[in-house]
């Protein structure tokens, strides 16, 4: 620690910023502990069954979170599948291809998407997206409906609408981070690739390869965002707790059931079960965010010359 200073102001500065960092860790821990404490009734009553059963019946006091876990993960993964190519396309275009005058408006517009409140997305979903999705579902030919992915009546609301809304909401997040990651690829890498006779596409491929872990991190960040989205999703997903592969089937997510039932949950067990759903969501989000962080860290720690060499060699080959 060559930079460690013994000057008092330096020490105070270090302690102060360190305290803030510790405060944040404490805050996350406190949320976890509090969620655990407030869901005691449900944890005691159901144990691991809570993660494994499908019935959600507030009247009978039967609570199982599996359809909600399924709905949350399924909708978020679908959203990633829809959003990743678009987000990457935007990021690549802005950082590698766009003429300078087009960059700023494009960055501004993608980031504007992130600033729209989710209730607005939800309303747009109900009145614009859902009718379009229903048209699509009505137009689905009968032979396709045999496939479980497209089975069920054309309701409009359901998994597909939710995944599409989520995809649109996630795009600005993953594309901004992916753009930053691409920006961090040293210019020398590209110049080296060109020097070796790479075409533009080959040079971009090299840059993508160089930035691959960071891009995965960007996508995972979007995934974390999709997991927790509440309002827009609950307005278009159909809110029906069932586990189905069908994109047309109404399903449910963890965040949505909390938002829907928390205010009117009079019964203690119901309340605790809802808070336990929050705990489950907290744990899953934590895991996803940890993975995404690990990807970004691993990118930072990579030994650049080796990657650069292999990438350049591959690009040139």
């Amino acid at each position, binding site marked *: 620690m060559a930079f460690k200073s013994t000057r008092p102001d330096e020490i105070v500065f270090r302690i102060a910023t360190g305290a803030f960092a510790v405060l944040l860790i404490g805050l996350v821990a406190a949320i976890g502990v509090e969620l655990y404490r407030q869901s005691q009734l449900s944890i005691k009553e159901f144990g691991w069954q809570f993660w494994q059963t499908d*019935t*959600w*019946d*507030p*009247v*009978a006091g*039967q609570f199982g979170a599996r359809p909600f876990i399924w709905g949350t993960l399924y909708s978020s993964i679908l959203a990633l599948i829809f959003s990743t190519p678009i987000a990457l396309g935007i990021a690549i275009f802005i950082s590698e291809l766009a003429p300078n005058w087009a960059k700023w408006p494009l960055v501004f517009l993608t980031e504007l998407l992130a600033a729209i409140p989710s209730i607005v997305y939800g309303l747009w979903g*109900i*009145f614009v997206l*859902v*009718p379009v999705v*229903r048209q699509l579902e009505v137009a689905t030919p009968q032979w396709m409906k045999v496939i479980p992915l497209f089975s069920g*009546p054309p*309701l*409009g*609301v*359901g998994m597909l609408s939710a995944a599409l809304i989520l995809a649109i909401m996630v795009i600005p997040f993953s594309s901004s981070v992916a753009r930053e990651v691409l920006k961090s690829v040293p210019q020398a890498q590209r110049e080296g690739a060109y020097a070796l006779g790479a075409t533009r596409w080959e040079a971009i491929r090299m840059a993508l390869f160089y930035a691959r872990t960071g891009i995965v991190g960007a996508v995972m960040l979007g995934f974390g965002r999709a997991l927790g989205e509440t309002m827009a999703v*609950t*307005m278009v997903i*159909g*809110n*029906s707790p069932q586990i189905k592969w069908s994109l047309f089937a*109404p399903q*449910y997510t963890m965040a*949505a059931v909390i*938002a*829907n*039932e*928390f*205010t*009117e*949950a*009079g*019964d203690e067990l*119901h*309340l605790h079960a809802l808070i336990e759903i929050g705990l489950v969501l907290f744990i899953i989000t934590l895991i996803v965010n940890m993975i995404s962080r690990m990807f970004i860290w691993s990118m930072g720690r990579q030994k650049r010359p080796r990657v650069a060499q292999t990438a350049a060699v591959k690009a040139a080959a």
Partner: protein
Amino acid sequence: MKLRTQIVAAAIVTAIGGATLVAQQINGAGATFPDPIYQKWFSEYNKANPKVQINYQPIGSGGGIRQVTAKTVFFGATDGPMTPEQLLAAPGKILHFPTVLGGVVPIYNLPGVTTPLKFSGPVLADIFLGKVTKWNDAAIAKLNAGVTLPATDIVVVHRSDGSGTTYILMDYLAKVSAEWKSKVGVAQSVNWPTGVGGKGSDGVTGQVKQTPGAIGYVELTFALTNKLAFGSVQNSAGKFVTASPETVTAAAAAAATSIPKDFRVSITNPPGDNAYPIASFTWLLLYESPADKTQGAAMVNFMKWALADGQKFAPEMGYAALPKAVVDLELKALETIKVK
């Protein structure tokens, strides 16, 4: 500088003066369903009695019961009466006071069908159970002689959020269908056997409007203010009644003869030719012995006003006024609140 100090000082004095002018700040929280009329009442009452300012947070019946039990608010409000367990959990005796009445109406989307459809309790229960799945089912056709019903699939749309509206409908369906009672039960949120969930009344309405063959339910106030067409429902006297503030009041009047002293009563499926069967009181929750006696006295005065003058605002806002018999009983019950 000096001028600025004076302005600040003046502002502070006005602020303090303003605070003392509003002698009474009473906070309440609870049901969302009566929120529009409560806000109207509190603002009208404040105009007539500037010293009393009542704040109401529509956080939901469950939240209202929790907060009044924890005494974080002075009064609560709920669409479903408190359960005996909830009453026991409260630190003091809580009294229920019906304030207005609301009805729940079936809305549907059937292109080509222009005459308002007729429903009966058992048929509604079978539709919401997912047993009647086509609009031209014999059970529906029997009630609607002369109407050509299409062979469209029925799409059930229900509330996804916990709601007093759902509670009232569940309470009714459980009374008219044994299967509903055993399979689904009565609560603000239930495990729906079929259908899709829309968030809030506007979510349900949006979904019904967009889906041919859909059936849903909303509160009467919502249907009236948004000019939605809705079906009539057969009451226990066998008559088909269309919901309106009058027929909902009639439901309460029919039930008033056998009303219990604590007013915790369900009035769905009441007797009476003119009574609309899917109706309910909404209640205000007050402690019998409030901790703050001046707030208690102010609240009792407000309740007296709401039961008399306040009722006039009900029909124009789509709520039904309380029948006189119930008002009289409540005025007596208000006397039992210990404000001294």
